[in-house]
Each structure stands twice: as C-alpha cells, then as structure tokens.
C-alpha cells in the first residue's frame, strides 16, 4: 500500500504542477470588429508555437509550451474584466472635397455629422486628420492644399466644441493616391481627408 500512496502523491503533484502551469495562458481570439483570426508566435524554453486558429492556446511554463484549444466561455471567465476594459476600437472615415478647394463635397457634409457623433460618444476621444489631393497641379502646391483640407476639417470639429488639442492634422499631398492616376489628372476620389477617431 505505501507504493499506492506514493503513486497517489505523485499524481496529485502532477495535477498541482499542471494547475500552476495553466496560470500562464495565451489565447488567440476573433477580432472584435471583423471576426478575423490573427496569429501570435509564442516562444518559451526554446520551444516555439504559432497560434493561428480561433481560440488556439499555449500554456507556457514547466519546460513545455502545451498547445490546446479554449472557447469563448472560458476566455470570458478568465479574461472577462480585461476584455470589458477594452477601449472602443479606432474607426477610419473618408471625406471628399471640391476640386482645388478645402470645401467638402455636398455628400460629405452629412458624412461629417456621423463622424462627429462617433467622436462625441467616445471617452477621451482623439481625432487624426490626414489630407490628400489628386495629381492636378504640382506636388508642392498639393502638399499645402492637402494640409489646408485637413485643417478645414479640424476647424469643423473645433467649431462644434471638440477640443483642438485632441486633434492632429497632417497633409500627404499626392503621395497616397486612393486611385492611381497619371500626373495632372483630376480624380474626385483622391481629393479627400482620412479621419481616424479613437
């Protein structure tokens, strides 16, 4: 019987060890916005695992990197508070401009209202405005025009009471065309500002 007792003790020890190791845990979860499953490379004790399927897990520690699978329920139990504390994901918008001007197109005016509402609903909101142009005119002129467009949008937010210090503006000229065109080509889709609210 002492042998049985030793075996029991050893089994208990293993259970306890496994319990400890499981405290270290990595789980890949679906993207909260689009459900996309990404990947995380986990390295421990010279072992390496790539977690790239939904709820794939690794439990690093005790000399191994035990791979496994979790589920939404278990993730909620262990990580519920951390996940609840996640900020609202940043969101990107685009507004379009009248040719050679810092005036929004008629369609972009109601679109601006939607962006403003999004910003208003966030806690400690920040806005990043990046202006762009089409390829009409020379690149240095377009650098200025793109910045003017970004500043014009920034002014719209400030005029509605949004704090100026939480807005950053930049102009990218014609460097990042949404639609690739030759030089000196008018393209309404390229006359735009991209706005990130976060």
């Amino acid at each position, binding site marked *: 019987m002492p042998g049985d007792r030793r075996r029991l003790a050893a089994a208990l020890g293993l259970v306890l060890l496994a319990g400890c190791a499981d405290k270290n845990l990595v789980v890949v979860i679906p993207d909260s916005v689009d459900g996309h499953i990404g990947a*995380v490379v986990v390295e421990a004790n010279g072992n390496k695992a790539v977690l790239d399927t939904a709820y794939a897990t690794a439990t690093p*520690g005790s000399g191994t990197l035990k791979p496994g699978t979790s589920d939404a329920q278990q993730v909620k139990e262990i*990580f519920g*508070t951390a996940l609840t504390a996640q900020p609202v994901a940043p969101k990107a918008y685009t507004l379009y401009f009248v040719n050679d001007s810092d005036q929004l197109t008629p369609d972009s005016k109601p679109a601006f209202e939607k962006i403003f509402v999004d910003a208003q609903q*966030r806690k400690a909101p920040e806005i990043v405005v990046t202006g762009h142009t089409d390829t009409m005119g020379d690149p240095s002129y377009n650098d200025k025009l793109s910045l003017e467009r970004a500043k014009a949008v920034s002014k719209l937010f400030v005029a509605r009471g949004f704090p100026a210090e939480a807005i950053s503006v930049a102009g990218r000229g014609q460097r990042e065309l949404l639609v690739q065109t030759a030089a000196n080509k008018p393209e309404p889709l390229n006359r735009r500002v991209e706005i990130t609210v976060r």
Partner: protein
Amino acid sequence: MRGIISKNFLSSLVLLAALVPYTAHAADPIGQVKTADGPVTVERSGASQPVAIGDHVFQSDVIVTAASGSVGITFVDNSMMSLGPDSRLVLDEFKFDTTTHEGEFDSSLQKGTLAVKSGQIVKQTPEAMHIKTPAALLGVRGTEFVVRADGKN
C-alpha cells in the same frame, strides 16, 4: 577579470540603451487611457500616481491595477491594450513613424491578465510588437489575443 569587465561594460551599455530612448521620447505621449475602473496607478520616474480616463501614457510607464481595478489604453498606432485586476504591465519601448507606419512596440506583462488588439505597427511589420511574460515571449502578427501571466516562473 575579463568576465567582470565585459559584464560591467554590458551593464553600462544596457543602462545607456535604457536612458537614451527615454530622454528622446519622454515628451511624446504614446497612448491615452480610454477606460479605467477601480484603483489603477502608473509608475513613472520612480513615483506612483493614480490614473484617470484621458491621461496620456509614455514609454517606460508601468501600469498597475489593484485587485478590483481594470484599465484600457489606445496607443497612437491604434493598437489597444486592456488590463484585468491585479496586473502589472511595463511599456518598455514604443516607436512609431506616423508617415510610414514603421515602428516597434515592446511591453512586459509581469503578472495578471491582458487583452491586446494590434494596430498599424503590426499591420506594417508583422511581429514588430512583442509582449514578454515571465514564462514566454510573444510575437504579434495581429490582431486580437489575450494573455495571462502568473508572475512566478
């Protein structure tokens, strides 16, 4: 003797490496606190202070939640990190070029629970974001995952 010298030399290099980026980036916020619940503090330049929604965070900050605390931060590359209770996260290094989106984001979860959503740094350069725990090193290819560290290993 040689061993001692090289060890000292190495530690001064480490010290230098730790000081240089800190002074270079100390003024630039790397993110902002968007959610905070219960006691949450930040350790910065040797002092500990409470954290509130809207506060900026900086490279080298240590974010600490109490047993009833949680906090969520959005970084300037649009990545997000949120901590559950009884957690400790060091923002070791953050570099981000807003024009090229190239950068590097290294942090250490010393204990507790962390939810991560990667941003533009990882979109531009997969695995340019690392999270160290006492038991493992994670290279992030994007986008969402959770990690727990028991703070012992």
